[in-house]
């Protein structure tokens, strides 16, 4: 879990450099989130954690904070292992 969090933090820090993100801070309230950022985030998560973000998963609530993103990744990875 800490490992997942660390990787996500490193990725996000490239976009929110002026600001140290708190684990429960809503990144969508920090300012302008554009589609390129969104796409880069999705591609990063898919590649880094070998998961597929389905259309139904693309819900802001899954990605609004570092902690929610970590839980989302864990739930996807558990699904993969369960198979």
């Amino acid at each position, binding site marked *: 879990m800490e490992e997942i969090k660390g990787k996500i933090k490193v990725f996000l820090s*490239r976009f929110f450099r002026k600001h140290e993100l708190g684990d429960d801070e809503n990144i969508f309230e920090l300012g302008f989130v554009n589609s390129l950022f*969104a796409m880069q985030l999705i591609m990063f998560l898919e590649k880094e954690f070998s998961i597929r973000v389905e*259309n139904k998963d693309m819900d802001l609530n899954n990605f609004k904070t570092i902690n929610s993103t970590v839980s989302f990744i864990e739930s996807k990875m558990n699904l993969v292992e369960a198979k």
Partner: protein
Amino acid sequence: MNTVAVQEKKVNADEKGEEKKVKCVVWDLDNTIWDGVLLEDENVVLRDGVVDIIKELDQRGMLQSIASKNEYDLAMGKLKEMGLDEYFLYPQINWNSKSISIKTIAQSINIGIDSLAFIDDQSFELEEVAFTHKDVLCLRAQELEKILNLPQMNPKFITEDSKIRRLMYQSDIERKKIEENYEGPQEEFLSTLNMVFTISPVGDGDLQRAEELTVRTHQLNTTGYTYSYEDLDAFRKSEKHKLLISSLDDKYGTYGKIGLCLVECESEFWVLKLLLMSCRVMSRGVGTVMLNHIMSLAKKEGKRLRAEFVSNDRNRMMYVTFKFAGFKEIDQVGDMVILENDLEHVQAFPEYLEVKIIE
């Protein structure tokens, strides 16, 4: 004889319906652009008529590049001497197979490989490319005089944007070099560009470009609906529709008219039928700006906002754009998904660019 043959061919092509239009013509050099082999004879001379063809294709808004097995510096020097070097984007002058060079060109320009044509004098090279890339239009340099008449080489419209397309791509190359060397965060880089994004209703003079955008744009396109000049003209005048076009400029020059959006206004809600952006502005975040503009207009009018989305294999980014802007799927009709936004949260425009809205 030749002209007759070409005309017949053209009629046949027209009967079969629309041919896939070429966006980029890739040239071989030896015995194609010039007579002879440069490494054997440094005084090669241009083939008859070749300069006129290159300039005419450029005027039509078609991009051009090179795939040649040659010494890079020597060949570029010769092109410069001939005054032709500026016409070619991402020239591939090396010892790779031409199929690899063709692929590199398509990726660098960021267009589908099926929108390329390749001209070479050697059957071996033409076959090697055709074998790897079945959708590339392969043409024999021996039949150069026919090229301008091919239907694939004749865009339906030549717009203001097509005439300066090469220059716009060249400024892109310049921007990319600077962007690659920029160390800070992306937004900080974007704010150094002094971008101005302009949204305006589609005017008389924009209709051809608007039609061209619906036909040419696949990646950043929410539905892929194509509309004719007449359709668009009707939407423009319709009370029930909003048809908006956008352009982007920065300190390096203009990107031209790069975005289009069609909204159908029902009494209870608005439907976003089409939102598209040229892939040249992909990393500028302006698709989201255009969407936010529509969202705030709908909110101001007290309407709900719906959006149609039709997936193709390349437009996932637009689905992501909708979802991250707070849209939720509410229905599916065939391959079309309908999304809706309650407009509770509408983002402000970003600080890294200036937005101009012309009513």
